[in-house]
Each structure stands twice: as C-alpha cells, then as structure tokens.
C-alpha cells in the first residue's frame, strides 16, 4: 500500500481536530457552524485581523523552530518557554539601558535576546553532556528558574516602572513596530486619517518580527540540510554511537544544539518585546509561548516550513478564538481542544494509513466490478 504523504496526514488531522472541536461545541450546546463561521469571519474581517494573525504567529514560528530544531538533533527541548523569558528579559534590559542609534540598537537588542536564550539553552546542553542529566527534566526546571529570575529582575528599583508590575519600556530606537513612535504623533495621526487601510493595520502593533522569523526559517532549513554542522547535528540526533565512532565529538554537538534551540526561542522573546510589548512584566504563571512551540513543532513535522505553516494556523485560531466569547458566549478554551485533537490525530498516523488503504481497496473493487 502506498504511504500517505505528510501533507495529507497533516490536512486530515487538522480536519479531524476541527470535527472533534465541533463535537465538543455541540455537546456543550453551541452551534459549531456558527462558531467556525464567527472564527473565520473574525480572522478575515478587516486588514487589522490579518495583521494580528501575523503578530500572534511570530513568536510561535520561532519557539516552534526551537523545539523542532532540537528534535531533529535528537533532543527534546521543553525549555523554549524559559529561553523565551530569558530572551525577552535580555532584550528589554538592552533596549532600556543602552542608548544607541536605531540602526545599531535594533539588531543589537535582538542579539541580546538571542544570546540570553542561547545561554539558557546551553545550560541544559552542558548539564546533559557533562553529567548526563536528561534535558527534558532540566529544561522544565530551568523554565521555572527563568520565570523567577524575570520576576526578581523586574522588581529591581530603577528597572521597575514606578507604580507598576512591569519594567521600564525600551527606548524607541530599539522598537521594530512599523512607524512605531511616529504613528501617534499629530502628523502621524493626520496621515492615518487619510489612509483608512493603512490606518487599520497601524492600529495593531504590526512589526518586522514576522520577517525576521521567515529569515530564521530559511536559515534553520539551510543549516540542517546544507552545512557540515547540520549534517553532524542530525547524525548525532539519529545515532550517537555511530557519530562518535566516526570522530564526531558528540558532547559538543549536544551543547551546540541546545544553544541554537535556545537562541531561536530567545529571539522570539526579544522580538515580542521589540515589536509588541516594549517591556517585560512580572509573571504569575508561564505565558505558554514556548509550550505552544511544542505543539507547533509536532504539527509541522519538525520541518522548518512545516513549522511556519503550523504557526500561522495556530495564529489564526489564537486570534479568532477570543471573538467567540462576545459573539456567541463560547469560551475560548475550545481553541485548546481543537489544537489538542489535531496533535492527537497526528500522533496516530496508523489510523489515516488504514483508512486510506481501506478506501483505496474499496474504490478498487468498485472500479473492477463496474467493468
């Protein structure tokens, strides 16, 4: 029997996830058609909705890449959440305290996020390669350590914004939202008055983050497939013993892999600060950007462009979901049910293969008997 291509598998799983979501809605007494119609209408309603989808997808693309990259090299990075927090914190500190012209400030702030995330990832890598500590366990704990580091740094006088639970805001020179500072000046407001389409988009924190994320997707794909480093990382991921036997220094590549995965998640945190939040706040709980990256990586089959597509899909749901509450009174947790079901079905490729085989033989019999 012919094997199903991954894309078909993904498509079928997405469909099945939406059907399970519909059943859940039905069971709770809502009309699933109305709900999905609202969701789709909510996303395609106005230019600003498109902008929001991209804004919400940007960190997911990068945390998804982070998890996927580690996975391709044989590591399970549950720590994208903590690396994201460290990246956001590092970028904020640099954005607040190091005044530079924008042309330097923007990339260096990103770099600060990347480096902090990479360092946080490397910690797990070093723990694994030096002392054999499983990266799943260490990254989960590092997530909590990152959260409390964030909270205590945000509380430091001089960094904390007075009378708030958040930090100072980064300087305008580090911001990457389009026309960020200008759009609220009188001239900016006057210009927006005359351009309704642009105005609608500029009402959102539209920013350059998605472009950086696309560059990251291209770089990760290139790194994995076209470079010696990527080749060796994959070899270590598939078979450590054979890699070591062939002269590849396995422990070093474990650290490199975790550091690069951390760098991607850290970049996600940095871009979020530079493009959207402009600050970091005290966290009562994990925000989930890193954990959502695990879902995105799974749906994207750990392929860079697959991750990109999965992040966009999740971005659509994340933006459309909250619109269900005011319109139909449906709690937005339905989005989590759909995402969970999609992953569940993706994890069971056997089901689809069996169904496809049955379908083919059934169709084959029909064709034969009609002759």
């Amino acid at each position, binding site marked *: 029997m012919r094997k199903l291509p991954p894309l078909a598998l993904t498509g079928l799983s997405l469909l099945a996830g939406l059907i399970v979501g519909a059943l859940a809605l039905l069971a709770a007494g809502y009309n699933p058609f109305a709900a999905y119609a609202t969701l789709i209408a909510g996303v395609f309603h106005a230019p600003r909705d498109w902008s929001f989808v991209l804004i919400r997808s940007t960190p997911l693309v990068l945390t998804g890449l982070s998890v996927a990259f580690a996975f391709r090299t044989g590591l399970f990075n549950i720590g994208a959440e903590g690396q994201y927090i460290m990246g956001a914190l590092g970028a904020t500190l640099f954005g607040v305290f190091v005044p530079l012209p924008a042309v330097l400030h923007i990339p260096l702030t990103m770099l600060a996020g990347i480096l902090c995330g990479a360092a946080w990832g490397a910690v797990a890598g070093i723990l694994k390669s030096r002392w054999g500590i499983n990266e799943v366990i260490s990254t989960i704990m590092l997530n909590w350590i990152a959260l409390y580091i964030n909270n205590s740094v945000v509380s430091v006088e001089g960094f904390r914004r007075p009378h708030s639970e958040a930090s100072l805001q980064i300087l305008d020179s580090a911001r990457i939202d389009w026309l960020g500072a200008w759009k609220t000046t009188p001239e900016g407001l006057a210009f927006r008055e005359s351009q309704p389409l642009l105005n609608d988009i500029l009402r959102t924190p539209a920013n350059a983050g998605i472009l950086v994320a696309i560059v990251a997707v291209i770089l990760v794909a290139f790194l994995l497939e*076209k470079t*010696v480093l990527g080749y*060796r990382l994959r*070899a270590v991921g598939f*078979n450590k013993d*054979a*890699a*070591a*036997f062939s*002269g590849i220094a396995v422990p070093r590549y474990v650290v490199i892999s975790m550091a690069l995965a951390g760098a991607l998640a850290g970049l996600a945190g940095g871009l979020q600060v530079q493009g959207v939040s402009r600050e970091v706040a005290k966290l009562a709980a994990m925000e989930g950007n890193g954990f959502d990256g695990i879902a995105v990586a799974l749906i994207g089959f750990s392929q860079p462009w697959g991750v990109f597509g999965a992040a966009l899909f999740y971005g659509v749901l994340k933006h459309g979901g909250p619109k269900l509450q005011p319109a139909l009174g449906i709690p937005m947790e339905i989005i989590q049910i759909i995402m969970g079901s999609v992953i569940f079905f993706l994890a069971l490729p056997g089901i689809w293969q069996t169904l496809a085989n049955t379908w083919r033989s059934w169709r084959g019999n029909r064709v034969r008997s009609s002759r």
Partner: protein
Amino acid sequence: MADSPALELKGFTKTFGSLVANDNIDLEIRAGEVHALLGENGAGKTTLMNCAYGVYQPDRGTIYRLGKQVTVRSPADALAQGIGMVHQHFMLVDRFTVAENLVLGQEPRRHGVLLDRRKAEEAVLDLGERYGLRVDPRAVIEDLSVGAQQKVEILKALYRGAEILILDEPTAVLTPQEIHDLGKIIRQLCGDGKSVILITHKLKEILSFADRCTVIRKGVKVATLEVSQTDQDELASMMVGRKVQWHLERREFQPGSVVLRVEELWARDYRGLEALKGLSFEVRAGEILAVAGVEGNGQTELLDILCGLKAPTGGRISIDGQPIERPDPGKLRELGFNAIPEDRQRKGLVLEFQVGENLVLDSVHVPPFSQRGLLNLQAIRENAARNIEGYDIRPPNPVALASALSGGNQQKVVIARALANQPRLIVAAQPTRGLDVGAIEFVHRALLNQRDAGCAILLVSFELDEVLELADRILVLYEGRSQGVFDRAEATEDVLGRAMAGAAHA
C-alpha cells in the same frame, strides 16, 4: 498416515510490492529430521518460514500437516498445529525471569488468578532435563548470555507444544562452544521425533547438523538435497549461482615498517574487572595481524581503545612511531586510521541517513565533501555513485536510506567508507559477521587488496576460518593476555584452538 510428511508447504508465493520474495516454493519436512534452508542474505528463507508460522499471509500456497490441509493465519494458529519458531532477534521480556518468560500467555494458575510460579519453574526444569536445555528458571533474562537466552526461546516453543521447530539463523550470535551445544540439543530434539528447520547461510553448520537441505536463491527453490550426498562446493555454488573461490590469491608477505605499536596495554571492562592485562603487539605495513580468541577475552576493550571510545588504564599506543596520548576518533582518523566496527547498525551506520550520507560520515568536514562548512552535495553524490558501483551495493541508489539495505549491503557501505582514502591502518572487527559466502568472499578480497597495497590491518574475528584465510600472523588472546603470536605457516585450527582454550604456548 505414518508416511505423510510432518509438514508440507505447496506453491508458496509471497510478494512485497514489486519484489517477489517467494516464488512458488514447495517444501517437505519429515518427522524427526533436521532440514536446513540455505540461501544468501535476502534470498527469502525467513519470509517463507514467517509465512508458515503465520507472521505473514502468503499470496498463494497451502500448508499440510501430517497430510491434512490446515490454515495458519497467525502464530497462535501455527502453535496450535505444533509449529514453533525462534526468531533471530529474541522476543523475551528482559526483566522477567526464565520461568516467567516461559509461561507468558499460558500461565499455570493458582486459585484462578495467581501465577503458579513453582509449576512454571518445574516446567523449565522438566523440559530442560528432557532436551538438555539447562537454564536456571529464576535467572532474569537480561543477566543471561545470548546462548542461554536462545535456550529459553527454544524452551518457550517446546512448552507451547511445538513438534516442528523453526530456528532462524540460530548460530549468528553464538560462540563456537555454544554452537556445539546447540548441535547436541538439536540432535536430542530429533531423537524425540521432533523436526527442526534450520534457516542459515553457513555451509559448515548444514554439513554438521542437517539431514537434508533446501537451497533457495532469489526467492526460487533451487533443489532439495540429502546432505550426506553433497559437499561445500556444490552447496555454495547453488546458493550464490556461481562458483565460489575458497582461497583467495595474495601477494607474497612483504611487511614494511611498524604502523601500530601497542605496549603493555591494560584496561577494565564495564564491570570494572581487568579485561586487558599487559597486551603488547605490533602491526606492520602490508600485513594482516589477526587477533583470534573466544569472545569475551578482551576483544571488545581492545577495539574500543583503538577506536578512541575508551581510555586504557595503562600502556602505550603509537601510530607510525608517534605516541597517541589519549586516542579520540577524530584525531585517529587524521593519522590515517580507519575502522570497521563490530556492530554495524549501532556504530557503523546512521540508519536514518541515506547511503551517500553514510559514506561520508567520517570525512564530511574535509574537501571535496564540504568547503567552509557548507556541504558539497554534488561531491557527496558522486562519491556515493562511485562506491555503489565499486562495492556492488544494492539497491544501487545513493539516496536509499541505510535502513532499507540488507545486512550484507549495509556492511558493504561500512567497508567502502573504511577503505576510502588509502588508510594507513584498518581495524576490522568481525567484518563478515552475518554475511553469506558471496559477500564474505567480496569483503576478504577487499581487505587483501588493501594489504597488498601496503596498508596495516588488525583483524579481530571469532571465526577461525576467517583468521586462517586472511592473517599473515595470528595473535591468540586469552583472558586479556597474548597466548603467543603464530605465523601463517605454523597456524592450524588445532594449534590455535588449543591456545584459545588457554593452553600455554609450546
């Protein structure tokens, strides 16, 4: 019905996609006989038996048991008909005891719910006594040697009432002593009226164990022969479809300078026990030094140290007179060292990588395969095409995954890589383990060519035939020490055998 065969397969055909694994094969097994199925790697022997055992369903074919047609749709059906099978890869629960494994699925019970451990243990002892399969019923599987685990598998089949026992490559993982024991067990089973089907590609075993032999080549039955009326040459040429050369030509022994020198090497095994106790030897350019010995006398530790995977506790190693302080695989390769690992699937290959990618596993970082950190995919492809042709790797597809290749072809990939770039020194560990005669001839030819070209080769093998065929000098390793080094001319199976058993060198 006394004359009806114990088992008869008629017209068995099995295809996988476009591959015909079995093409209209007939097979007849008599009660009380040892019937060998002989064929190259991938000839379709195991597939045929998996069909008989109900693991696969044949496309066509009928099974007769004592003259009556039976249906076998699953291993459970097969067992109900008295057909049992021991697979090459054992199917035991590692953490369970022998007795627990024996009764798994057919447990004797107390009060309907409790496992009757005593009865299970008695069953192990009873069956063991009857067929000479003595195993401690309370031993945990993971603590047992491979040979003992195999006994448990055979016991399992007998416990389930097997009258016809299929053994798939039973000797592939056994030491010579264990092979000898297995032979006795098989004899005892046949004496009791049971039939044994032996899947193998080793001619010697057939000649010493089997009564009759059916040869299969590329899915087609070639013939069924009485073993007493045939010989090694006939079987080998039937199996590979051409005449096999048993003794390869070699250039006169002209050793050059010393390439590898090992002095007073000491090492501990994974349990912390002394495994090498002051081993010294040297390998010169243009010679093959074979390390012979029974498995477990320090070979693994020696190989791991030479490949840079383990640190010795004492001693010195030098290559071309240059001392190697702490051997690591990367540095060794820069000195012109290459190796064929013992376990090709674990250490030799990345199974998820393509053949072409595997062929550059140790050289991807140097030109032409990469420049400034970027892969040169063109050069990697060309290298793959060249090696696939030179080593006759099948299927001839550079982008096929290594996992899709048969064992023999996987080994060719490993060897092609190890012999690339004119190495100064090759360490070859069990280079023909699990290969059929055709492939063995090929590998031996390749190693001898390297020797003739002036490469120093250290061969570690448990097969005396291989040692005697290839070596210029033979070092016998016993309990971590050298029992003496023998020249090719003075080494005979007898002399080496005595040294391997620990007798002092006369």
